[in-house]
């Protein structure tokens, strides 16, 4: 079943521990800066329960992804070729590639918007887009191991910001998260759907799986990564729910950043500037990983050099962010990406079933 092109030379592999960072850093990015409003709009302050529901679902999906990849022993391209054959499979792969690129566009444009509204309203998108894309290109050019390094750096640099979550609690009302459930299961699920954007990064495992040295050992690290993500989101949401009143949170676009505003340290009046600046290190690995995955899938379909794909995709990325001018467009893009991402996650169990069935059928034929 081994596809020769999924065999990666040993010196390009990563150790299984790194999967923790890859999974976690891809899930904590721009989504976490403003997801509170979306989850609270459906389930109010019961929305923390939906995060736990989402978390359970994610662990399940992660388990399925590993089952699929183990069964085929390759990446998403091998899986799709195995299931659908060369042409339909190729089409599906190309869709996946575009999906990763869409993620990249969404993250980049949303983060530029954050910088525009919070720090430099006059900032031209072309300038910042250019700086960012050159930087990302530089990383991706360095290969997967460099991107993994960026992920590790991103997770570690983001850590101190988590500590500052303790500060706003003293201004809030802890009983806001009193465990009384007054929303229906449907509302909780709708709210879970609202939080999905942040968790989409899990799907990239489909692309970098062949790069993991000890694949079996990496499972536990991947689950740790998801678990840590859920804890991070849970703490973030609970702190926001304590700090804002339920009707107030609907007014706030980036609840996590607004929360930094109350932090009062003697050497800087506006802590959110530090937060947003540090967040660049958190967002960069996201962008790199997405762009790398998008270009790698395309490379594997058409058997062309990854660098050429990277050039084309970088240009598409650059052009795409120009067409998203205002808050409404960016909000729509985020909703669209979440929607697509949700279908993508729902597709994974279907894919698993297909793999299992086809494997059975072929085994019978061979027997």
């Amino acid at each position, binding site marked *: 079943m081994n596809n020769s092109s999924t065999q990666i030379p040993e010196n390009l592999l990563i150790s299984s521990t790194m999967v923790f960072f890859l999974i976690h850093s891809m899930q904590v990015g721009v989504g976490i800066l403003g997801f509170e409003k979306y989850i609270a709009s459906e389930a109010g302050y019961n929305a923390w329960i939906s995060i736990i529901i989402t978390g359970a679902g994610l662990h399940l999906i992660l388990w399925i992804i590993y089952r699929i990849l183990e069964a085929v022993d390759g990446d998403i391209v091998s899986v799709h070729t195995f299931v659908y054959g060369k042409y339909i499979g190729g089409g599906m792969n190309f869709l996946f590639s575009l999906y990763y690129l869409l993620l990249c566009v969404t993250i980049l444009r949303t983060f530029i918007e954050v910088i525009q509204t919070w720090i430099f309203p006059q900032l031209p998108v072309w300038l910042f887009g250019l*700086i960012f894309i050159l930087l990302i290109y530089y990383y991706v050019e360095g290969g997967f191991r460099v991107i993994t390094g960026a992920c590790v750096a991103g997770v570690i640099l983001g850590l101190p910001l988590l500590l500052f979550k303790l500060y706003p609690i003293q201004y809030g009302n802890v009983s806001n998260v009193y465990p009384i459930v007054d929303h229906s299961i449907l509302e909780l699920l709708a709210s879970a759907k609202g939080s999905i954007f942040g968790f989409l990064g899990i799907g990239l495992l489909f692309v970098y799986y062949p790069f993991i040295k000890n694949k079996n050992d990496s499972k536990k690290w991947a689950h740790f990564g998801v678990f840590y993500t859920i804890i991070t989101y849970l703490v973030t949401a609970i702190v926001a729910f304590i700090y804002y009143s*339920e009707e107030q949170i609907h007014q706030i676009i980036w609840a996590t950043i607004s929360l930094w505003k109350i932090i009062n340290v003697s050497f800087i009046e506006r802590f959110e500037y530090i937060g947003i600046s540090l967040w660049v290190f958190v967002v960069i690995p996201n962008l790199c990983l997405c762009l790398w995955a998008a270009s790698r899938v395309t490379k594997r379909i058409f058997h062309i050099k990854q660098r050429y794909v990277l050039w084309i995709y970088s240009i598409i990325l650059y052009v795409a962010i120009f067409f998203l001018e205002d808050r409404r467009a960016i909000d729509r893009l985020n909703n669209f990406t979440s929607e697509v991402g949700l279908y993508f996650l729902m597709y994974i169990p279907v894919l698993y079933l297909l793999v299992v069935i086809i494997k059975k059928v072929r085994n019978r034929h061979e027997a």
Partner: protein
Amino acid sequence: MKHNPLFHSLLVLTFFLTGCLPHKSIEDAALVDVAAFDLIDEEKIKGTMLIPQFIQDETGGVEEKHISSVGESVQEIYRNVESKSSKPLRMGKVSMIFFGDELAKKDISRYIDFLQRDPDIGREVYLGVVAGNAEDLIKGKYSKTEPTGEYIEQLMEQNTTKYIPTQNLQKFLYAYYSDGMDPSLPYFQKEGKEMKLAGYVFFDKNKMVYSIPFSEAFVLKLLSQDFKNGLQPIEYKDHQVALENIGSKVKYRIKGDKNNPEFHINLKVNGMVGEIVPANRKIATKELEKAFKDYFTEHTTQLIQEFQENNIDPLGLGEVIKNRHGNFDPEKWKEKYPNIPVKVNVSVRILEKGIAG
């Protein structure tokens, strides 16, 4: 991996490109320290900005500049003030914002949006209502050594730890938007050449409807939060006795069923005798504890009754019901609120009597 020199030079170039944005350095901006808004007529408000200007000589003094302007919205005032200023106005350092009481009685909400929308404005900004004209208050000079803005901020900070509930922009917005709570703000007054904290005012959503004097604010703080500071003097059998608060705790409990809730507020105060006038060593601690317990019970109960009569909920009883019982209906609650039984159980313990017996 091959390195492309053109690519690298582009990358380096981007770092220089960042200089293309307009810079905002402190010397080139008029940093507003305190702002005051007063109602002029039905439509227009007058805004006054206090801008400290640092004198560049060896004295290092601060000159205070006041710029006033009239407009219908805060941004309009902002623009008109800029038309009188040589430097662009920046709100990043604003520490306190005052509203005249006329404006607070009419509708404060029209001037709040600006405060929550502008990313420059912090959340620890203090808000306050002024008896009479807010402009006069910030135009006063209260200290020879401190600039007025700093003086006002420290006056607020000092009193917040002791006598008035913790209050800032975030707290105000929290209560303003909440269905189960009404906002409240400290109340200031200019008296001759001094400014003072005169009390506390309460809003019904966006309109100021009720106020208490400064002497009652301590009781309000006891009901609002746990803290360790401040003092309360009372009269006890021809003596004046003062109790220093060294740790108070307040807990809200709901008894009764969903349709007939009943609030029990448990308030525990640990204190230290600060003063007995005239000096009397024979007063038993137990008796004093009883006297303070009676005082706090009476005053807290009365305060809550006043809130209920005015149908305002600055303590957030609605929030408590909402969080504990769920399925909260703000309109029904508003109807029910004035008749909800609220009981305050106070316990006072006097732990120390200072260093004199």
